[in-house]
């Protein structure tokens, strides 16, 4: 028995539109990717019999067998380091870090190897692998279960970092990440796991690397990604009541960054607010402010502002709502944009 020969034939025929939660869309993406390419493997903690603590890998072991979706010993550096070796040897591993903060034991492997292998080997060894990280808060989780860890990854050259905000993007971006020739950090906003959409699978949305305007507007651009996209949309709807036309951009991909879409929008609207859940200091939000300002300076009517988490450790469940960017906080900052 060899895995590479034991191709499971699950035909990728368009199905009727069905309701999917984001978590289910991710499961479908994994299943379709594993069916389409025998080199795709899924492993991590509790991803086998249990189907993952969020059930994203539900049924994969049953369908594809223990060789293609399996539990590992409990060690995140081990999981990622093993994936590096498997990717070197022809597989396309997808690994799950159970929660954001539990990817930290793997940071050395990620920073020193995952991100650098292609470069170290002068292009000879690429690592097509995906590290799935359920991240961010808003679900009443206790400490270490709600971190927004994207800055660590986004700052590390060699990584590709994406985060879907809709079930459709969850499916499409995960399929694309698995097909990508380089390692992708795939950040899943836990809070949106249960958001639903009607999908006809398989589907593909805009390509990885492209930001998308989720709501067009003319007065100000809200730039969000992952867990804050729904807030930005809610804020835009509320602002409309007050006569402001708010454009909302969903970045989708943090690295590479879609300057063209963002810049064109801000040049049009002349104002921008970045909305992110992570602590603001030296964050992805800082980067967005910096590059938008560099590129749109003369179109700006007001400084680009940020609505982010505070520069504090993620709060305990009972207080998290005071920390998270809220619609009110977004609206307040929009109002301050020197109209």
């Amino acid at each position, binding site marked *: 028995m060899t895995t590479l020969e034991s191709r499971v034939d699950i035909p990728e025929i368009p199905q009727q539109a069905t309701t999917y939660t984001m978590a289910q869309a991710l499961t479908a993406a994994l299943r379709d990717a594993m069916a389409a390419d025998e080199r795709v493997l899924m492993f991590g*903690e509790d991803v086998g*019999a249990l189907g993952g603590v969020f059930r994203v890998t539900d049924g994969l072991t049953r369908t594809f067998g223990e060789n293609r979706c399996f539990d590992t010993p*409990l*060690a995140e550096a*081990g999981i990622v380091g093993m994936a590096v070796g498997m990717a070197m040897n022809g597989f396309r591993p997808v690994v799950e870090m159970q929660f954001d903060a539990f990817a*930290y034991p793997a940071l050395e492997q990620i920073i020193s190897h995952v991100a650098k292998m292609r470069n170290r080997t002068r292009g000879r060894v690429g690592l097509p692998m995906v590290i799935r990280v359920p991240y961010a808060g808003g679900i009443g989780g*206790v400490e270490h279960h709600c971190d927004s860890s994207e800055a660590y990854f986004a700052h590390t050259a060699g990584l590709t970092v994406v985060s879907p905000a809709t079930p459709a993007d969850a499916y499409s971006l995960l399929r694309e990440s698995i097909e990508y020739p380089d390692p992708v950090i795939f950040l899943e906003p836990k809070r949106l796991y249960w958001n639903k959409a009607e999908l006809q699978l398989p589907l593909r949305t805009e390509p990885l690397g492209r930001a998308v305007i989720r709501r067009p507007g003319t007065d100000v651009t809200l730039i969000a990604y992952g867990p804050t996209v729904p807030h930005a949309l809610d804020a835009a709807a509320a602002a409309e009541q007050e006569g402001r036309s708010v454009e909302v951009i969903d970045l989708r991909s943090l690295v590479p960054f879609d300057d063209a879409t963002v810049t064109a929008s801000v040049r049009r609207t002349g104002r921008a607010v970045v909305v992110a859940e992570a602590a603001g200091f030296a964050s992805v939000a800082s980067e967005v402010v910096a590059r938008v300002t560099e590129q749109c300076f003369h179109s700006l009517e007001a400084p680009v502002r940020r609505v982010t988490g505070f*520069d504090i450790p993620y709060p*305990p469940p009972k207080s998290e709502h005071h920390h998270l960017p809220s619609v009110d906080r977004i609206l307040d900052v929009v109002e301050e944009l020197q109209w």
Partner: protein
Amino acid sequence: MVLHAPETGHSTLLPSAEPVQLIDEHGAVTPHADYDLPSEAELLAAYRALVLGRRFDRQATTMVKQGRLAVYPSSNGQEASQVGAVLATRNDDWLFPTYRDCVALVTRGVDPVGVLTLLRGDWHSGYDPYEQHVAPQCTPLATQSLHGVGLAHAARLKGEDTVALVFIGDGATSEGDFHEALNFAAVFKAPVVFFVQNNGFAISVPLDKQSVAPSLAHKAIGYGIPGKRVDGNDVAAVISVVSAAVERARAGEGPTLIEAHTYRIDAHTNADDATRYRDAHDVEAWRGKDPVSRIDAYLRGTGALTEELAAGYAAEAEAVAEDLRRRLGADPVTDPRELFHHVYADRERLADQARLLDEELALEEGAGQ
């Protein structure tokens, strides 16, 4: 061939083929060559702690179902391990617990509401570590084992004879930090006891997918320290084996690794569905090895546990439960401003951000009036 590591006496580092047991599942004494049965007084104290611990655990389980806790990882089935290990320590020895070790903390004397604060969600930790010498319950697996080593080594440098007792699960032994902690402790001869509660599972992952070692205690020899195995459902054996390791550490002879063989009767937490990965039969088999009933049977057999005593402990346990219902049932009072109070000793550092929240709160309060 000159070797750099000591060569002698290392066979004593290997654990016994069978876990040490002093009282079997029916309450009968199973004498052991190396370990004496604890005194009757000690066993009665252990019995009382088990009764209290179990009641506490049941009450917490009830309250998580009622939504009073964000999550609860039950100790059900593991009470003898936690109680026995704690009773083997002095009150100024330090405990380094995980999220699972609530019964251990209650046994040490930490206020039960303090123990559950993390899980209720009003703060990350609900007690002063220096008061009962208990580190904050630790979630990132195995990380606390290094803190235990550092604290213990520090004690030794200060000339104190404090011992650190590190709690850790079977799954967490796979983490790199566990290896580093064992090795640091061994090299520095730090007074640490590593107490592994092998409850058979790391969430859904059974031990045989975690390790194929003869036993987890066999890891000890790789660090040059003794490894011991104990029946983790036999509180008498746990007390004896852990006490010996604690006294060895206290005497400056260095760390010990102990594996307690036990079982988690409940799911991983209330959020877990254990039927997905284990058989009801296995759970039933382990219920037959219940850690409370065997010591109950033993102490009633010796006559030490009278109806009256038992009734007294039961009443005490009810009082703990009642107190929990009352105090944990009330909504916690939290002040959002506190989010900024403990990030740095110097509160000024986050003053700007705190002001933003203050303004929002002032507005809300204004709107509320």
